[in-house]
């Protein structure tokens, strides 16, 4: 998944979903996931997936990119679905639709909400130490991403990625070791900055947990979608 692209969308795009709060979108996501778990009939899960797609079109989201970014769990869901295909084809379909619909909802959250806002909300549920480390991990991920890409090029240039021997694995190890070393040098720099600023925690959770008027259409849409899914499930039972 192209996290950098999703992060770019989350920060720079201006769609109706971007105006909703992170708390509102997390609550809507929880409602959709709960409805999806309740849907044990393929048609009910399809109702939710179709509703999600329609919602994304109405909310002017880049549907093709989001749909592609959500395909990752299909491989693992496919393994389970395959073993059920002959005896219970509808269950196999349900597994695939559930996996895809939940991934699409999560990817939409990522594309419309900056990570720090998501983790500022989740930080309320986590101990302060963990919440701060989560924010630090987010920052570090992007700091290290460029270096990691350069190291992958190094692996290719040294042809280590072409071989599969203990020697090449040790080479991989040395390359990752240099990345680890530079990463820990970053932590020392960060430590000095935090000491200088008198850090005693917390970094996260400073934003108040509040909903806003733009959350209302989101709640209406999510409620309608979850309700339709539950209705379809009860009608088909």
């Amino acid at each position, binding site marked *: 998944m192209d996290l950098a692209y999703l992060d770019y969308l989350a920060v720079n795009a201006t769609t109706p979903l971007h105006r909703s709060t992170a708390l509102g979108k997390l609550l809507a996501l929880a409602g959709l996931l709960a409805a*999806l778990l309740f849907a044990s009939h393929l048609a009910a899960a399809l109702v939710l997936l179709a509703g999600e797609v329609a919602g994304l079109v109405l909310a002017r989201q880049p549907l093709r990119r989001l749909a592609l970014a959500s395909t990752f769990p299909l491989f693992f869901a496919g393994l389970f679905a395959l073993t059920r295909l002959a005896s219970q084809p509808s269950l196999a379909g349900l597994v695939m639709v559930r996996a895809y619909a939940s991934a699409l909802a999560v990817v939409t959250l990522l594309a419309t909400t900056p990570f720090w806002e998501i983790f500022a909300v989740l930080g309320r549920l986590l101990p302060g130490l963990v919440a701060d480390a989560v*924010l630090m*991990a987010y920052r570090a991920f992007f700091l290290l991403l460029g270096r990691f890409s350069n190291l992958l090029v190094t692996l290719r240039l040294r042809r280590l990625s072409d071989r599969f021997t203990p020697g090449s694995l040790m080479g991989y190890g040395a390359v*990752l070791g240099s990345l680890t070393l530079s990463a820990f040098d970053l932590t020392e720099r960060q430590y000095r900055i935090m000491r200088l600023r008198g850090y005693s925690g917390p970094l996260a959770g400073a934003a108040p947990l509040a909903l806003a008027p733009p959350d209302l259409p989101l709640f209406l849409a999510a409620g309608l979608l979850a309700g339709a899914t539950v209705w379809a499930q009860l009608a088909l039972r």
Partner: protein
Amino acid sequence: MSHLHLPDGLLPLSWVILGFVLAGAGVAFATWRLAGADRGRLVPRLGIMAALMLLAMNLEVGLFDYHANLTVLAGVLLGPAGGFLAAFIANLFSAFLAHGGLTVVGLNGVVNGLEAAAGGWLFGLLRRNAHLPAATSAVVATVPTLALSTTLRLWILRQAGLFSTLAAAEGMAPSWLARLGTFPRFAALVYLFGAIGWLIEAVLIGGIVAFLAKARPALLEAGRD
């Protein structure tokens, strides 16, 4: 099989809840263990280690598209409690990247957290008592740790009932699917390919630790909590 790559909707609700309860207990215990640590130093280290683990998951190695995990390295560099927290954070992130479902975060956090804690503990034990070189200790600590965590994952998959449908449907499935579908055969496949993965991860972590032992040996002592 580095963690449970289960999408949402497969795991029964009782196991989802159990996973989050156990993960909460593990995080609370690890946080309590680290209560006396210098938070200004610990927070960046936890964050960096979790980010490294996430990046390593994108590093595919070898013929079968294995990806590195580095949970044991987290235990080696941050100690058992720090390793547990770093693994939990990495799992939380990866779930938001659709790499495993949100409902599996609890169980994955527990299994990978225990992997990091056990690996870090075993590494320290080997360094103190067997006086092995750092890289050898890391390799020796990684293999049994990953074997144990694979067993734990298989146990969870079986106990969570993800194979009961298969067993019931065996008579109706095509023969090749039925052969693959029984739990003992699935477990045998996981152990077979898993063992290759454990060795790859062990040599990889050995390479990283060998590099760090030469370049910055103090890092390998910092994780004793």
